[in-house]
């Protein structure tokens, strides 16, 4: 007999965990299908304060706290000798003043284990091979670690497969993005020379005329994540020859006063290119996409995990509503809403690479109120329309950049 659940969630990353947790809270029976064996490495290690509210509400925060991750209280941007710090406690929106820098292997594993405790059934090494949708009933086929094929019948499918992009590829939903092709090369390093107050927040330094930047994310265990983002050609050059250029850039990381000079690499540099993706629709008959399987812009503002958590939560709430027999306006209440927040980040991402955001960050003419409002965007509060830098993002960012240069 075919197994039956209410919802099949594809993927056990943060979007999948949060979605499953919400579904369970709504009294639904959930099966999570994860292709990998956890814990596993993944990039995207810096969270934003906005994600904290969702983790807290779903009872997932205690397990995260127990892992004693590095507390993150802000973000630091650096350019040609000038430094600009944003502290979340100064942000305009009502909200959390801190979050965490997390090793995703541990973070993701802890979340899904907790969700499993909350009542979700989780299958690892379960690769989805086929999904058939219809108005009332969906059939998901997957292959387990032994190669055995199973079919599950459910009322709704949530795709939280991230870079796996299960449904976008299966249903041909992918659309190309018009932004330049970029990539990242990264590694973890031994960061023992760090002083306690220097090493709390993410550090970002733009170079090569704003076409590239380097990050440093400190972890609580004394290691750090470092990486370089740039045009595909450039990062491939950094990666070539065992990451020779990458290692040189890290050693000479400006603004860190030699903190990374001669450090030990915990693993050889890795490369990921052309990660920016988008889809033509984020929902359809019997399914919805959340997290990175919808759209991924750019790593610059660490928005990936936060958007995954937000969209996983929102989509799950709507799935529960629909399965409860209520009607759901997927277009406005999900697709448009998600797009709104992503579009805010998009404006800031573009402004970052055009250099206009740097103009704002590093100008003495930028007053405190503007910094506080931009700080809330950097904290992930991109749906707070009382913040003019959210509501009028498409005009205000350019306007401020213009005025500080006038």
């Amino acid at each position: 007999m075919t197994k039956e659940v209410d919802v099949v969630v594809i993927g056990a990353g943060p979007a999948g965990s949060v979605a499953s947790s919400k579904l369970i809270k709504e009294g639904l029976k959930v099966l999570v299908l994860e292709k990998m064996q956890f814990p596993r490495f993944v990039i995207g290690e810096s969270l934003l304060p906005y994600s904290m509210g969702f983790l807290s509400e779903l009872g997932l925060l205690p397990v995260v706290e127990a892992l004693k991750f590095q507390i993150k209280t802000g973000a630091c941007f650096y350019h040609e000798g000038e430094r600009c710090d944003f502290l979340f406690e100064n942000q305009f929106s009502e909200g959390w003043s801190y979050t965490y820098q997390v090793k995703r292997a541990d973070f993701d594993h802890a979340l899904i284990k907790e969700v499993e405790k909350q009542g979700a059934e989780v299958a690892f090494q379960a690769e989805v091979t086929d999904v058939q949708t219809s108005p009332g009933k969906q059939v998901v086929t997957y292959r387990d670690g032994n190669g055995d094929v199973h079919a599950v019948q459910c009322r709704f499918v949530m795709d939280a497969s991230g870079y796996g992009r299960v449904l976008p590829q299966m249903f041909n939903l992918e659309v190309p993005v018009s932004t330049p092709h970029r990539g990242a090369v990264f590694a973890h390093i031994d960061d023992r020379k760090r002083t306690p107050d220097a090493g709390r927040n993410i550090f970002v330094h733009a170079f090569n005329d704003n076409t590239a930047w380097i990050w440093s994310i400190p972890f609580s265990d004394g290691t750090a994540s470092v990486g370089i983002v740039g045009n595909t050609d450039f990062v491939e050059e950094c990666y070539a020859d065992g990451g020779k250029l990458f290692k040189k850039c890290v050693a000479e990381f400006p603004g860190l006063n030699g903190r990374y000079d001669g450090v030990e690499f915990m693993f050889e540099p890795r490369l990921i290119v052309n990660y920016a993706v988008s889809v033509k629709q984020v929902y359809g008959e019997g399914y919805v996409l959340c997290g990175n399987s919808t759209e991924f812009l750019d790593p610059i503002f660490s928005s990936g995990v936060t958007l995954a958590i937000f969209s996983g939560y929102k989509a799950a709430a709507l799935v529960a509503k629909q399965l409860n027999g209520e009607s759901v306006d997927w277009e406005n209440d999900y697709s448009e809403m998600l797009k709104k927040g992503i579009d805010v980040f998009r404006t800031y991402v573009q402004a970052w690479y055009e250099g206009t955001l740097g103009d704002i960050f590093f100008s003495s003419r930028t007053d405190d109120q503007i910094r506080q409002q931009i700080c809330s965007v950097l904290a992930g509060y991109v749906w707070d329309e009382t913040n003019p830098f959210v509501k009028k993002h498409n005009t205000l960012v350019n306007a401020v950049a213009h005025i500080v240069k006038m």
Partner: protein
Amino acid sequence: MEQGKNIVVIGSGIGGLVCALVLAKHGYHVQVLEKNHQIGGSLQVFSRDKQIFDTGVHYVGGLDKGENLYQIFKYLEIFDELEIKRLDEHAFDVIRLSNGLSVNHGMGYENFKGQLKNSFPDNHEDIDMICTEIQEFCTCFPLYNLELDSGRNYVEHPEVLQVGAWEHVSALTDNEDLVKVILGSGPLYAGIRGVTPFYVVALILNSFIKGSYRFVNGGSQIARLLMKRISEHGGKVSRRKEVVSASYNESGSITSLNCSDGSVFACDFVVSNLHPKETIRILGKEHFKNAFVNRVFSVPNTIAPFMLYLSFHKNAFPYSNSNYYDYFTDDIWNEEFRFSSDWPQMIFTSAQVSKYTREFTDSVSVMCYMDFNEFRKWEDSVRTIVKEGKRQEDYESFKKICENRVIDRLEERFPGIRSKIKNVYSSTPLTYRDYISTPDGSMYGIQKDFNSIHRTQINTKTHIPNLFLTGQNIIFHGILGATIGALVTSFNFVDNKLIIEKIKIYD
């Protein structure tokens, strides 16, 4: 016509003054009568917090060496004494749409096109074509090019007047943002879809591309210099002289003009610089042909301005050498002028420049448009410096509300500006009506309409044998338009070939 005759000019706007000066230079006795305490019409300025504020004119085009207005001002002997500042070569205008797109208008056609092409990489051919069209249309107006004739001119080919601006540009490109950006300085001529002719855009935009300047310490210097030259040529400009009626002889010619203070000015000829509607009202409806009166009273006029004047704290707000056209609606050239929750949907911002302006500015003028009907309930009140009337408290409070709305908009595009403001002043369509004497405070007079070119065209000759018209309603408005209009009016008295020859010396 004979020299040595008395010509009285009603109104001291730039059209009246230029016409008076040309005639004075050619031996006529000219007397200009101005009802206000200040001459200049839309060139009037006022001063607050030791700052000078322009009320109508914020910048002027065609002033680069050898361009049309440069040559005319040279001929009028005022150019050398003008204190002007050339606007930003790469951004005399900045057009900012509601979707966040910001595009500069640059001076010189190559630069103008270059700025557009940077922003519209897929529309290079469209941009070239649109610029060619602008230049083509300009060749159809010989006097604009300081010629008396041209291969193709608008008199023999009135179809060039019958092309709509929005419609024509939209036909030349599929990119609506490009249309919006090209026509983004539309508030300069109150552009409206389905109404404003393309030639108006072509003549005005072309002149700004050919050298845009701001006036140092205000545009009133033009009026002052013209007045100085008029008196050097034996003419006179009198202020606080409000013409209220005319006396006629039996052949229907005006023999004298009567002012509100009882003074009487005898005349052989009269040139009225006023709006035709105002001219008819003062000189008596019965002396004009019914058809003309009906036409003048029925054609629509351009929208009225609500102006905001801000003074800033010392060294607080940076000086920008550009003008800004900021839109808060997608519906450009179709903006809502009634007071709604969205008002204003467009603001024009221009910094005032003084001799001492360096990194910071002390003041800016902001213009937006507003339907006169919002002020209908107070329309019976009159207030100028000469006529010190009072307006009700609710008028003042509405004005305050409008001021705050405009500042909210400014804050969106110039974040932080509010905290730099020292004082706020404003004028309404009523202010404009009282000082400029246009119907319902209209900024640019009769609205040119490509659908009915003959109805909106005003001839310099009238049915009163010795009355001639000049001003912004003749050719087009603005410093350049009214100046060329004044030349056309003066051609009724002096040989046009002679004047053009003299102007072209400065080629």
